[in-house]
């Protein structure tokens, strides 16, 4: 969802380091994928599958890996520009999505519990993922990835502390 001026001050981006972390993780994946495809191609090629058809297939597989590489390098930056969150007295609101835009709001009193988790790469750069659980069915857990770790902890504490004394369903 595009933000207009009045929203700009209230909504926040996640930590920009998240772009870097996502990019590195994506590129590692793309390189691994490319490596596997390349090895498979070479093995098949030298085992005698050298007709035109096979050569085209090899090229297509390699092109796919290359595409993955480019997308993984570019996408985190684009996706970052369209991800916002805000916490106000009503609750947590998240907006994300480049083509398909989503906007989810979790009122404070509906938070059942919240987790903060980190992958190995994220731990290196102090990035974390916040998962907010509600008693709902379809959006039973709402994820906000790429927060600064301390910020994620702070958010979790704020969300959980308030919801504690109230019935949730």
């Amino acid at each position, binding site marked *: 969802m595009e933000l207009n001026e009045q929203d700009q001050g209230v909504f926040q981006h996640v930590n920009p380091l998240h772009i870097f972390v996502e990019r590195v993780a994506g590129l590692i994946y793309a390189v691994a994928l490319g490596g596997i495809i390349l090895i498979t191609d070479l093995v098949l090629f030298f085992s005698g599958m050298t007709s035109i058809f096979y050569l085209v297939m090899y090229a297509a597989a390699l092109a796919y890996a290359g595409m993955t590489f480019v997308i993984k390098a570019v996408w985190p930056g684009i996706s970052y520009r369209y991800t916002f969150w805000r916490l106000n007295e009503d609750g947590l609101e998240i907006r994300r999505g480049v083509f398909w*835009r989503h*906007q989810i*709001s979790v*009122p404070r009193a509906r938070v059942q519990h919240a987790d903060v988790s980190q992958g190995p790469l994220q731990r290196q750069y102090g990035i974390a993922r916040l998962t907010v659980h509600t008693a709902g069915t379809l*959006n039973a857990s709402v994820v906000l990835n790429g927060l600064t770790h301390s910020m994620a902890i702070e958010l979790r504490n704020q969300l959980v502390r308030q919801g504690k004394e109230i019935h949730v369903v």
Partner: protein
Amino acid sequence: MSSDPRDSRPPDESAKRSAPDGQLPDLPDGVGEAAGKMERGQLSDEIAPSEDPELGAATGNLPTPPMEWLHPTSLIFDLIAYVRKYIVPSLFALFTAASGSWVGIGFATIIFVPVILVSITRYFTLRFAIRNNELIVTEGLFFREARAVPCSRIQNVDLVQNVLHRLIGVAEARIETASGTEPEAILRVLSLAKIEHLRKEIFSRRERMAALPEAGESESPRGMPGTTTVTEAPETVLQIPTGWLVRAGLASNRGFVMVSILLGLYFQFDQGFELLENWNIQQATGWLNQNLGVSAQVLIGLLTALAFLVLLRLVGIAWFLLRFHGYRLVRIGEDLRISCGLFTKVSATVPVRRVQFISIHQNLIMRWMNLASIRIETAGGAGRESENPTATVARRWFIPVLPVDQVPAILTRLRKDLQWQSDNLDWHSLAPRAGTRLLRMALIQSCFCLLLVAFGIIQALYLNHADALFMGSWWPFSITLGLLIPPLLIIHAIKQSRSKKYARTDYGVVYRSGILTWKTSVTFFEKIQTLRVDQSPFDRYWKMARLSIDTAAAGPADHLISVPYLDAAFVKQEFAELNRKTAFHQPRFG
């Protein structure tokens, strides 16, 4: 909000356990904790009194209720329950064993012996009692499992009674809490007197515990102390006469569902051991082709189709009569209790405070007859697709059939602030251009259908040369289909754009949708869990958005509040407003 013990999470339960209600703590504290967490194998012998049914006597002057056993016939019913659960392999085992082959007997042994052993173990190890305001159920031979369910958390003690149960005078009791999809405990089976006793014990404790903290809360919306509600005489709210059920059966597609299930079973068996191999339809049709003229064949075909339709409706009626015969909705205190069933009797409680979602359904035939059915969703009732009898009755089919003009009265019973006048609501239709958009989609789809027509024409013209291209002579079918579908698509698009409506009221949100089957659903601000707006690239082009509202236990009502093709500006404003309302209306009572 004051903290209420019903709300406390397990770590806080010690506070509740010491509630001064005169109960005698006959369990050591630590054991209670362990039991509360349902840990396995940590049970000390002191609270596993399977060997000391005279525990109550041993403790002398303390009137501790002894741990109770299930009814002796439980052995049989347990076995039946298992066989029903795995009906296909069980029947297979029985048939193969009956045929006398050693393989079959071995197979049956493999299936039945463990089940029998499990049933026997369950019967001889399962004990239950109410102690310290908790229902305690212990079970298991090697891995002892004890679960302690605080009475305050028990929502329902539901009852299922099939014919055999009724002959013996027993029933299956299902203890339900708000958590999870399965009943917290199933006591299969108990004598009716015992269940009634258990029910009374649990509910009186629950009310007593609920009354304690609320006494100080003067502004509590339901300030009346629970103890008075227990003594209130049950009041019949609704009884469904057989005539309504017959009409509901006529209107429903239940027969179709049942027949397809039967067909599915038939094919399963057919593949299993080809019992019905000699049932040869081809022979019959062959005979028909030889001995009758075309018109007679068409007549027979039509009659068969008609008979099949009548059969489907009859099956539907039979299903409704079996399930809901003698339906009675009774108010007891604040809760509603449903009892119904012809052979298998079900008695289920609806915890009115926990109703999350109310849905009124009317299919085409029901509308002709001015009937409706009401479904509800309660927290913890989000059963999976499986239709266990009590969930089916209490949620999926809260009220299976009701004249439309009686709907408002019933809804007011569910919630006092729900003054149902669906015509007076501030309905918002879809975005003005939604009709155009849907129509355009239908037209694009129609183009594909016209492609089908074109292929058919080509095939018809060049049939001789084209045999290899288009298999066989399908052209009459493709042309008819291609010409029939586009109008239907267009009608559907127009109807769809007109049928969806959304409204916000003082208490919550109402959504209506459906072309043939109208579904109108209500949820309440304090029951809304999350709000969501989605916009696809197409939505952005058309300046529209989808507004979705998530509640707990969504599913049984078979309707979601997710409104597509709304005007984007309206959605933006509505989202903010709903956000504010949802945050403001906090869930007050469990």
